[in-house]
């Protein structure tokens, strides 16, 4: 009786300590996961809601856009440029030495049909709407901080780091395009 408690006491002391460490750590981990899980809804609520996501595509009637004209439509709350390019604008866009540009991309990669250029009308610098048929390259010019885009919407000059983005789109028929 007197002998047994001694080893079991040391065992207990030793085992109790590691067991306590384990419990302490496990409680901490469970607590942290629990906190993270309960914080997540409060972070995620700020992301686009279902109703915002539902309004994700826009159809555009192309028959009313003259050659040389550029229209702006609203898609997901931001402007999208639909530009009916003239032959000279197309050759200019295709002949440019794109490898030397800040964001090298050929015109081929940026259009599905040569005469239709469809772009997100948001300057890649700080989000202003560039003005069409302006600037040194007659594509777009951003009035906020002076970025010049060419007739393929590629950045040629100024602070913007990237070309105007090309949204997802499909031609539903000859005269209709669905953006998004």
């Amino acid at each position, binding site marked *: 009786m007197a002998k047994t408690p001694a080893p079991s006491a040391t065992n207990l002391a030793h085992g109790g300590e590691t067991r306590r460490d384990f419990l302490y750590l496990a409680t901490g981990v469970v607590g942290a996961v629990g906190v993270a899980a309960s914080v997540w809804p409060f*972070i995620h609520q*700020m*992301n*686009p*809601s279902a109703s*915002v996501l539902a309004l994700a595509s826009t159809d555009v009637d192309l028959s009313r856009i003259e050659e040389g004209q550029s229209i*702006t439509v*609203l898609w*997901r*709350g*931001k*402007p999208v440029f639909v530009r009916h390019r003239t032959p000279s604008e197309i050759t200019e866009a295709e002949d440019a030495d794109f490898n030397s540009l800040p964001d090298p991309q050929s015109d081929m990669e940026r259009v599905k049909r040569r005469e239709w250029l469809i772009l997100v009308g*948001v300057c890649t*610098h*700080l*989000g*202003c*709407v*560039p003005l069409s048929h302006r600037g040194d390259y007659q594509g777009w010019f*951003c*009035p*906020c*901080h*002076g970025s010049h885009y060419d007739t393929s919407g590629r950045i040629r000059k100024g*602070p*913007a*780091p990237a070309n105007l983005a090309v949204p997802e789109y499909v031609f539903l028929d000859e005269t209709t395009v669905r953006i998004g």
Partner: protein
Amino acid sequence: MSNSSMGKKVVQWFDYRLPIFTFMHHSLVDYQTPKNLNYWWNFGSLAGIVLVIQIITGIVLAMHYTPHVDHAFDSVESIMRDVNYGWLIRYLHANGGSAFFVVVYIHIFRGLYFGSYKSPREVVWWMGLIILLLMMATAFMGYVLPWGQMSFWAATVITNIFSAIPLVGETITTWLWGGFAVGNPTLNRFFSLHYLLPFVVVGVVFLHLWALHRFGSNNPTGIDTKGPKDTVPFHPYYTIKDLFGLSVFLIVLLAFVFYAPNYLGHPDNYVKANPLVTPAHIVPEWYFLPFYAILRAVPDIWFVEAKLAGVIAMFTSILILFVLPWLDSSPIRSARYRPWYKQIFWFLVIDVIVLGISGAKPPEGVWLILGRVATVYYFIHFLILMPLIGRLEPTKPLPGSIDESVRQESGTQTSETTRKHS
């Protein structure tokens, strides 16, 4: 007599259980303050009063404002035209915002000049900088609420700053907007946060004062108070001085409110927000211009593109102030006894003004170059001159005490003549 003693007993009963009266007495009446504080020391309490004005006018405006993209602009117009005294309250709030920054910027430069950020007041300084950052966020979101063209495009440009963050930038901006562009969810959350943050500021102001009262106010000599000869009680000496300063301040604020209420605003903000048309020239409110200039001044640096580099430089320009107590190597606080520092202090003031002007101009030609030079100098001031000058400059002898310096100043001739006679 019996009434007043009765009142006294009630106060004592309450104070015994919650010593709030003792606390107020300690921090306002008994609080021993250096007796040589000049008018530059008015701007701390002034900032506190402006904060209260902003909160009161803001709460009232929120009673008439509708945070929805279809109604926000009209509700602000209705405040201006229909709500009783709405025009007055809104103009007070709008100009009060500008006044808040004037007061706080002067308060900060006073701290820079007299070395108030140095040991043992580093945490006072930090709390102040946190207040500044909160103020900037609050002011920015408040400017978005009227939902005019400048509101919308300022929101667009500023939130796009976060898109410069590599990899997660786009995700963060979408999260901030609650959509794919600045829209109704953005307006709603900005309203919520614009209402919340001023109260957070109030909390940090308490920490600012708590840390301040630990060692007491700095003073124009920068030397520590050494005894009762160096100080006066805060009340009535500084309560009355602060009240005088407040009345001068109110004259200026009300002159703007009544005679030039839109002078600091932008006419484009009286045009309703239109996501399809960017105004020809976007400029932030004047108090952001120096930082805006830094944002635009930075070109591509090695592999970092200009957009990201500009954003980093802009945030660094404020964050660098947090380590200023350690960048400044001089053991002497006040610029009065630091002839070289005094010079570069004024260069810094000029530098920030140049940054402000170039921030207001289109980033082209001479203004872009000036903006770049001023940006570089701003960082040279803190990173090179502050550590260097503290070690090299020949300083002037410090007075033995605040009392001694006051006597020397107030009667240079008499004290000198008395000294000669004796």
